[in-house]
């Protein structure tokens, strides 16, 4: 870690950011500062720019204007990628080559390793710990395709945890995941929050992770329309029995997400 970073710098800072492709900005004029220890929920309808925002943070989508800082360092000069864990929205099990839970999670540890070197006992412990945090202890040798969709999602979270990151970014971790797996996920995230991990998570349904969220940002058409405490008004709670899930990709959307409506 370079000594340049002020200790109290925000974990993530967007300053006047336009984010998008080929000069077409999907997210416009984003000013957002995320402090250490926050659990930020990014909410909004499909196409509102939630995924584009975190892809901009991670360097997967170009920043067309403005600046992104990670741990106080401009993103172009940031190289300490092991401090950031990323859980993509969906995982296409590429090519069908069998891989085990342990192999996939270990691939998240690479940014802490040196090329050509063998992994150390510490690396193996970090991988085993990450698997245990998501509640899959003892499944290291299980083939990925033998797991349910929700369990596979938890493996991807373990992969992101293998570097013991300070910032965890999750894209729709609960979409298409059954209730039991959502609860296992909420327990895992709660443990990380207790350790002081900063979390940014995209969702358009809250479910069991809702109590963890300390701050909500709502996007509409690429612009922030709400930034503040989570929308915990009374008229949500009587819908708690309505958390059904389709088995496809589209989660059931709550009809009354306040500002989204």
């Amino acid at each position, binding site marked *: 870690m370079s000594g340049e970073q002020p200790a109290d710098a925000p974990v993530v800072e967007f300053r006047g950011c336009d984010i998008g492709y080929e000069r077409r900005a999907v997210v416009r004029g984003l000013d957002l500062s995320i402090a250490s220890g926050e659990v930020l929920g990014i909410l909004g309808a499909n196409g509102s720019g939630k995924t584009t925002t975190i892809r901009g943070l*991670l360097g997967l989508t170009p920043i067309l204007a403005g600046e992104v800082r990670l741990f106080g360092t401009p993103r172009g000069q940031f190289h300490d*990628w092991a401090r950031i864990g990323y859980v993509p929205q969906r995982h296409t099990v590429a*090519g069908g080559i069998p891989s085990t839970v342990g*192999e*996939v999670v270990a*691939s998240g540890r690479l*940014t802490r390793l040196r090329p*050509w070197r063998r992994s150390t006992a510490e690396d193996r412990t970090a991988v085993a710990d990450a698997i245990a945090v998501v509640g899959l202890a003892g499944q290291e040798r299980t083939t990925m395709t033998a797991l349910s969709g929700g369990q596979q999602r938890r493996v991807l979270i373990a992969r992101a945890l293998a570097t013991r990151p300070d910032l965890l970014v999750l894209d729709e971790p609960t979409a298409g995941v059954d209730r039991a797996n959502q609860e296992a996920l909420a327990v895992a995230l709660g443990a990380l929050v207790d350790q002081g991990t900063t979390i940014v998570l995209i969702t358009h349904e809250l479910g069991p992770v809702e109590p963890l969220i300390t701050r909500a940002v709502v996007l509409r058409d690429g612009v922030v329309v709400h930034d503040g405490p989570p929308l915990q008004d009374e008229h949500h709670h009587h819908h708690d029995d309505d958390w059904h899930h389709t088995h496809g990709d589209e989660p059931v959307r709550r009809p009354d997400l306040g500002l989204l409506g």
Partner: protein
Amino acid sequence: MTILHYEFMQRALLASVLIGLSAPSVGVYLVQRRLSLIGDGLGHVALAGVAVGVLTSTSPIWAALVAAVAGAVAIELIRSRGRTSGDVALAVLFYGGIAGGVVLISQAPGGTPSNLNAYLFGAITTTTPSDLVVFAVLSAIVLLVTHGLGRYLFAVSNDEEYATASGLPVLPLNLLLAVMTAVTVVVSMRVVGLLLISALMIVPIATAQLIAGSFRATVAIGTVIGVAVSVAGVTTSYYQDTPSGGTIVLFAIALFVLAAAIAGVRDHRRQRAAQPV
């Protein structure tokens, strides 16, 4: 074993072991990335290099290596830009390679069609002692890279976007894999042949993934199959007077069909066992 009395057979068998080891080691990453046909395309491009080597009376192996590596880098750069026109660009490159190769070889003094067949489909009599040295060095490089940096190649092949977000050097790793594919194509050119090498990269891995439960086991089983079918193919080629490359690939496909049948029966039984009585 009478066949070991002939020095050309000793060389052919050694060359078959080398290619049997290296082809699946590269192929596993190609299968994982759904780039199974890249090796085939590079074989086409390598033929143009062979032709240049024959015409200029230099070693066809070195010219083929230059052509295949240049082709591999071009392919990876086109692919990384992700344009739809890239598909057409690859086709032009591949067919340009094989068309140029055929035309150039026809101009060579004493360039006969049977000569061309040996490059395309493999022959057991063509491996020279100096070829064998080059193959050994190239195979060693391929095995060192694919196993030494295997974790990185796995990460990039398994989930390229995640690898990018983790700050891994994705383009250099992709270029490295493409170059290793090109090198493997060149190692294949005596006993397997430029048009059949892709099968030896892909089919042993496709067979192994039917049986294996992990990536590591897929690589191990695929490599054992690669060596076994290569040696069996070269040996059969000696006794039956068949082109060695075609014989090797038919053995590989026979094992694939057998493994698919076994896996089919196994899955059927598992399904029945899982059903409540």
